[in-house]
Structures are given as C-alpha cells and as structure tokens.
C-alpha cells in the first residue's frame, strides 16, 4: 500500500517534471514581452519578462517611449524567462506605450504598457447626479404647525369665554 503510494507520487513528479521540461518549447514560440502590471499610474515600477531569449538568454530593455530609459533583462530560473524592471517616471503622460526588449542573440519582442492618471481601482467612476434628498426639509415644519394650532386653540377658548360672559349678561 505504502509502496503503491510512493510509486504514484514518483509518477506524478515525473509527469510534472516532463511538463516543466516542455514549457520552454511553448514559451519559445510566444515572441512577446509580458508587462506586469500592464496598466499603471505615473511613478510605478513595472516588471517585464519574456521567454523569447531562450533558457540562458539575457536582453536589453528599452522603456524610452514612456521615459523609463533602458534596463537589462537577466536570465532567471522562473520558467526560464529573462526578467527586468523599470520605473515609469512621475511625469509620464497617460497613453499606451511600446516597451521593447532585444535578446542577446538579436531577437526583438515588444509589449504594451498603458499609463493612466488614476489607479486601476478608480477606473469605474460614478456618473450622473446623486439622489441625496427628497424635499423633506421643504415641507411644513411640524413643530411650528403644532405651535400654531395650539395658539389658535387658545384664541378659540378666549373667544368662547368672552361670548359666554356676554350671554350671561356680564357685560362686554
């Protein structure tokens, strides 16, 4: 039983290893530069990676379009990618910029970077007016109305009293 489990684990690892080994084949076919994050605000750091340069390839990056200058993509163990970083200058204007990487063996790959003024959280903005009132402050003031009714009741009582006296002949 235990032996079977070990055997299965071994097989799974072998399959996984084969899968990893196969990865550069697919990676090598995609000739693009991945840009992360692909949407940034001015001043942000951006990481780019590509599998186009091969397992031990390095590359020269060019973020001059957005004002990020040149940078180096170094080979990394991560999926055999070449990885590099640059900073979008705080003065960058909104727009889409092409980031370029040229492998040491000459291959050229590009990726797009979108610069926005707002953070991505703010991409969906409210629109239109806000329903923040029903006119309740415009209607009759209940306190004032009650006071008015009470005052009129006093007046009515006073008037009745006077009429009552007159009817009794008290003189008015």
């Amino acid at each position, binding site marked *: 039983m235990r032996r079977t489990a070990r055997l299965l684990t071994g097989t799974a690892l072998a399959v996984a290893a084969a899968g990893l080994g196969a990865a550069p084949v697919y990676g090598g076919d995609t000739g693009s530069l991945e840009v992360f994050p692909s949407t940034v605000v001015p001043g942000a750091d951006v990481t780019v990676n590509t599998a186009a340069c091969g397992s031990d390839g390095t590359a020269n990056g060019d973020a001059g379009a957005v004002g990020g200058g040149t940078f180096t993509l170094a080979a990394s163990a991560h999926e055999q990618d070449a990885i590099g970083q640059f900073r979008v200058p705080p003065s960058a204007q909104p727009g889409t910029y092409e980031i370029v990487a040229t492998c040491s063996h000459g291959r050229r790959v590009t990726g797009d970077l979108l610069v926005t003024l707002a953070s991505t959280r*703010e991409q969906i903005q409210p629109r*239109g007016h806000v329903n*923040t*009132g029903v006119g309740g402050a415009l209607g009759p003031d209940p306190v004032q109305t009650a006071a008015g009714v*009470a005052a009129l009741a*006093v*007046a009515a009582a006073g008037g009745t009293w006077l009429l009552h006296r007159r009817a009794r002949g008290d003189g008015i």
Partner: protein
Amino acid sequence: MRRVSNAAIASVTVVALCSGAWLLRSGAEAHPPPQPSAAQAATGGDRARSVAPAMPHSPPSRIRIPAIGVNAPLMGLGLTPQGSLNVPPAEKKNLAGWYEAGTSPGERGTAVVAGHVDNAEGPAVFYDLGSVRKGSTVEVDRLDGRTAVFTVDAVEVYDSRSFPDAKVYGAARRPELRVITCGGGYSETTGYRGNVVVFAHLTGSR
C-alpha cells in the same frame, strides 16, 4: 373669586389668534437648503495653493466640516445599476458615504463623499453644504488612524440634466475630495433639480 377682566381675555385671544395664524403660515412655507453663490465657483486660482503629500490607501471612517457643524460617520457606497453613485439609507440622517471602489480620501486621485440634504422627516447631514465657502476645512478620519485635512477650492451647483461627470468624478493628479449632496432648486414632480458639489484638495495630514 377675583374676576379676570374682559380686556385681558380679549387681548390674550387676539395675540393667540395672530401668532397662531403667523406660525401656521410660516411653518408651511418652504425652507430650502442654502445654495452656493457665484463667488464660490472655481476660478482656477486654487492650483497655486499648497498641496500636501499623498497618503497611502486607507478607508475613511468619519467626515467633519467644522464650518457647518458636520461630524458624521462614513459608510462604503457602490454604484446603482444606472452607474450613478449609490447613497446611504435615507432614514439615517447623520450618515454620509464614500465611493469605496474609488480613491480613498488622502490618496492621490479623486475621492468622492455623498450624503443627504434631507429626508422625509427634515434636514439631514449635508443640509448646510451649500453654505460652505472657499478655504473652509474638511477633515476625514481614516481607518489607519490618520486624518486627511482638505481645503475647499470651490462650491458649485449643477443641474442633473447636464452633470459634469469628468469634472466631478474624473481622475486628479493630486489628492482631491468631492463632497456631494442634493440642491439646485426643488420641483414637486421631479424632486431636487441637481447637486451641490464641494471641491477640495489635500493640504495636510496628521
């Protein structure tokens, strides 16, 4: 028993009659919330004022506008199916809200706070918002324990039919705040005709 004179009764009756009539009449009159004057409109000159460094993202908890006596908790607001900003429950008259999918107050960008001018019972949290003036202070307490201090740049009123979305909600390169409530006149059939919007930017934090 000492008699109350007829004259005394008559004068009390007359005074009560007059004051009762006045109270009923004035009580039924409309008391519209204050509206900003043209002098409070944006002039563009506020750009020269100092701007404090942006703060990191943190949800706010409370808003204070000392000039009009506002001190109210803030709840998170989303959007309605039509895309407009949702509002706090109308029955809570001292409650305002902020657009929680957007910029937090103090962070770089445009943070949006909204609250009711009134509800069915009468005036609510932002009843006096239209009387805020340029240079007034708006303070927002945040959950990170810090307070963002904004200075008012302009107070404007917009008709619902031509609401300037980009100006009110659009992105900003510095930390800004909008405080919104209803205003712009009232119609028996369609309600308030627009919104009062306070524009402010961050001038300090503590």
